[in-house]
């Protein structure tokens, strides 16, 4: 199917015995749909990022070298690199242990290990304050014994640790996927050739994961470069400023002249870093080796006498970073104020009540739900069309369309927020909730495009060709075959968008306008305003509801 060309149009009036010589118009259904998809991507991606680049210009480049910005930049860089390294180490080790050894309780361990991905980072930060903040039970007890707290989660080390906790599942996901693509017979061949089981794993499988490891590192480094929730909750009290918290401060309090231009300049630098990482990732992917599919399942590596120790270590570690913070969150929710010891007498539902009845909570929940719902619907429609076009038709612009549509996934939310902030006054969205909506759509469109792309690119294009031969036009084949096949995946992606957006903080906090406080912002404000028990209670409720929602959505995504 080549794209249309006007020179081959049929001559009207030519006699056609038994066949109707149908004229191909340049405006056939497919071309219109493609045009609409391009317009949507232009409006959602090209225009905001373009105007951010234009506004940034070059006149504010000097501000990048001012003390505040340099310090924040260094802090961001160090925390992102350190946390990416940690995430790859933790994620890689867990992937190998779970996928390729006989550790007990694999399925449950995998589920627990992935769970931090389902908890919004700022909620994780709040729960760790309950677990290892200065007023937490552990630190209080330690101070009573030794005069000073054991370890406070506030500060650079806490920020890095929390970034690791919330990004290692991504690394684990990437490395697990790569691990499953390594055919088991490669290791079996090494065994036959005389290598021991651990040696076969270390010399055959692990080297083949290099591409995935590098890819996981760049991805987590970029996404951690501009995380907002964790550094603002854990870093700010210790004056550990990162670029994202700096930008937030500039926008909120206007401590610099022309704050929009300054943050646009910072945004452009971050955008450049993100795009560079994206290019790197593509280059890494290109140099990776090609693997054949293998039918035989991998034989798990027997841990032998190390099995109990390995089990205790991995289960203990995973539970400590997943279950313990949630328990701390629960404990905080049941206490009236921070620092009060948990005894049967002090348990109260006051905080939960306060959280649920606070005036902001209900409106925040309503705002979040309609914003997330609307974003999900829009993303589903646009993502369905783009995902279908790029996987089910042949056209030269498919790759560009796909790349542009999924690019925002690799760009920090901070940059997306700044880009929309820059263009908002010009399109009349300044200080309206719609600004948050369009930013959500930009940010999460990739979720739907990717969930359509993955299953559909495996089906050969003959599905549509069979429809064409059966008498369907291009547009009709797209409607009857391609879109219909893509629909379940797109809806699954849309549910994911809704569940992600409803608990979002970065975009919502930076694009905050009167009357558009989302749930995330309500929790964040409660935490910042000293109501940390109410914040914990609300965070717990949102997390539990969110996990339940994901659990319900999971079977549909298959």
């Amino acid at each position, binding site marked *: 199917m080549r794209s249309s060309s006007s020179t081959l149009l049929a001559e009207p009036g030519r006699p056609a015995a038994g066949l109707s010589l149908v004229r191909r118009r340049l405006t056939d259904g497919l071309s219109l749909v493609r045009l609409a998809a391009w317009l949507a991507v232009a409006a959602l991606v090209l225009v905001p990022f373009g105007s951010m680049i234009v506004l940034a210009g070059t006149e504010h480049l000097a501000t990048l070298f001012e003390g505040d910005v340099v310090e924040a930049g260094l802090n961001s860089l160090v925390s992102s690199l350190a946390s990416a390294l940690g995430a790859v180490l933790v994620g890689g080790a867990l992937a190998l242990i779970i996928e390729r050894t006989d550790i007990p309780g694999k399925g449950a361990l995998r589920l627990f290990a992935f769970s931090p991905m389902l908890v919004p980072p700022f909620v994780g930060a709040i729960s760790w304050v309950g677990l290892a903040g200065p007023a937490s039970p552990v630190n209080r007890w330690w101070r009573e014994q030794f005069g000073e707290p054991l370890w406070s989660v506030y500060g650079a080390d806490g920020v890095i640790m929390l970034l690791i906790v919330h990004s290692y599942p991504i690394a684990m996901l990437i490395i697990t996927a790569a691990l499953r693509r390594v055919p088991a017979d490669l290791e079996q061949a090494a065994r036959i050739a005389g290598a021991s089981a651990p040696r076969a794993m270390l010399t055959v499988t692990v080297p083949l994961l290099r591409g995935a490891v590098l890819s996981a590192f760049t991805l987590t480094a970029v996404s951690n470069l501009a995380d907002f929730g964790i550094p603002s909750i854990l870093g700010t009290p210790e004056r550990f400023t990162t670029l994202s918290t700096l930008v937030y401060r500039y926008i909120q309090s206007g401590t610099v002249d022309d704050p929009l231009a300054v943050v646009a300049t910072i945004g452009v630098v971050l955008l450049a870093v993100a795009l560079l990482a994206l290019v790197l990732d593509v280059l890494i992917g290109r140099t990776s080796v090609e693997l054949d599919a293998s039918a035989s399942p991998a034989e798990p590596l027997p841990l032998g006498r190390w099995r109990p120790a390995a089990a205790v270590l991995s289960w203990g570690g995973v539970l400590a970073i997943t279950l313990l913070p949630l328990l701390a969150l629960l404990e905080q929710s049941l206490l009236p104020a921070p620092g009060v010891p948990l005894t049967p007498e002090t348990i109260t539902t006051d905080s939960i009540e306060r959280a649920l009845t606070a005036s902001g909570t209900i409106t925040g929940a309503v705002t979040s739900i309609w914003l997330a719902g609307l974003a999900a619907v829009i993303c589903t429609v646009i993502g369905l069309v783009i995902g279908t076009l790029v996987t089910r038709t042949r056209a030269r612009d498919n790759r560009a369309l796909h790349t542009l549509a999924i690019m925002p996934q690799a760009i920090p939310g901070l940059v997306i927020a700044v880009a929309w902030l820059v263009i908002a006054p010009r399109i009349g969205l300044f200080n309206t909730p719609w600004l948050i909506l369009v930013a959500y759509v930009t940010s999460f469109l990739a979720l739907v495009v990717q969930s359509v792309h993955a299953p559909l690119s495996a089906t050969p294009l*003959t599905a549509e060709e069979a429809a064409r031969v059966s008498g369907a036009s291009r547009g009709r084949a797209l409607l009857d075959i391609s879109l219909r096949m893509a629909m379940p995946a797109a809806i699954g992606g849309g549910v994911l968008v809704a569940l992600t957006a409803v608990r979002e903080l970065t975009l919502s906090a930076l694009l905050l306008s009167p009357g558009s406080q989302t749930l995330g912002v309500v929790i964040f404000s409660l935490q910042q305003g000293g109501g940390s028990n109410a914040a914990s209670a609300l965070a717990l409720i949102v997390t539990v509801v969110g996990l339940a929602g994901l659990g319900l959505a999971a079977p549909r995504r298959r």
Partner: protein
Amino acid sequence: MATVSLDRIDVRFPDGTVGLREISLDVRDGEFVALVGPSGSGKTTLLRAVAGFLRPAAGSIDIDGTVVAGAGGFIEPEHRGLGMVFQQHAVWPHWNVGRNVEYPLRMQRVPKARRAALTTAALERVGLGGYERRDPATLSGGQRQRVALARALVAEPRVLLLDEALSALDEPLRDRLRLELQALTRELDLTVIHVTHDRDEALALADRVVMLDGGRIVQVGAPEDLVERPASAAVARFLSDAALVEGCLDAEGFAAYNHPLRLPASAVAGARGAVTLAVLPEAIAIEPGDDAVVTSSLYGRDGSDVVLDWAGLSVRCRSRAHRPSVGDRMRVVVDRAIAYPAADVSAARPLAESVAA
């Protein structure tokens, strides 16, 4: 039930490589034509040009007297009135069997009751009566391919295009569907163009076989023509596993360069002078002796398929009498051969020039 004629078709791919060059072919009404050739020879490209998925850069395609591609215009695949079966069946997973099969009728706006009747008939014809409500995911590979065939036939296409339609199936099933396909197409008197990489399948099914190489037609003819009178050394090698020997042929007979093979002139058909000699397996007999060493000996129903190393030349033959073992020394007896002009080894020349024998 229609004719297909191609007139000097050229196809070029977007990257500039040539897919087809000056293809001219007339498929008669009700004829079963098989396209064969090594991979990359252009056989699938030719089929896709007939279907309308590729636009020829030059030349014209004519179905039943109507130009579907060429200077006069271009008719999209959906308006060509064809049926097509793909290698990977392409049965739509989101619809049940009945919905899949009736789709071409829907496109023609056939009323519902008639659609149902035609669908039932088409499914019965391929041996899947009563399968209308089945989910394609619950069918076996062979059943899915039958669904695809029913879908291709339901609207009574003018031409049936088969793109490696049987190649993805297991051997016993492929054999059965081959028989059914022939019975069905003869019963319906269908014009069929069948692309396959399976040489025996092409020879077995087709009225005429078209052999392509390098984007050109190298020979068109009845199966026995291609087997007994290959148009070039390349055709003989591809279709019949002929051994090719360089040498000189004159009134005295044939003498190979650097090889002991000598043949009297009466045993050699074809060109004179510097030639490439094609020796078909059927023209070779072996007996105990000292000329050649057996390098492989595969059992077959009608004789063993024996490959020998004969003074550096690999020759293939069928031995009905007994099955030699690998390493046995044998004497090779060649009783006839076909000679082609010497330059003809890679032979990707148009048909007209290469009618040699």
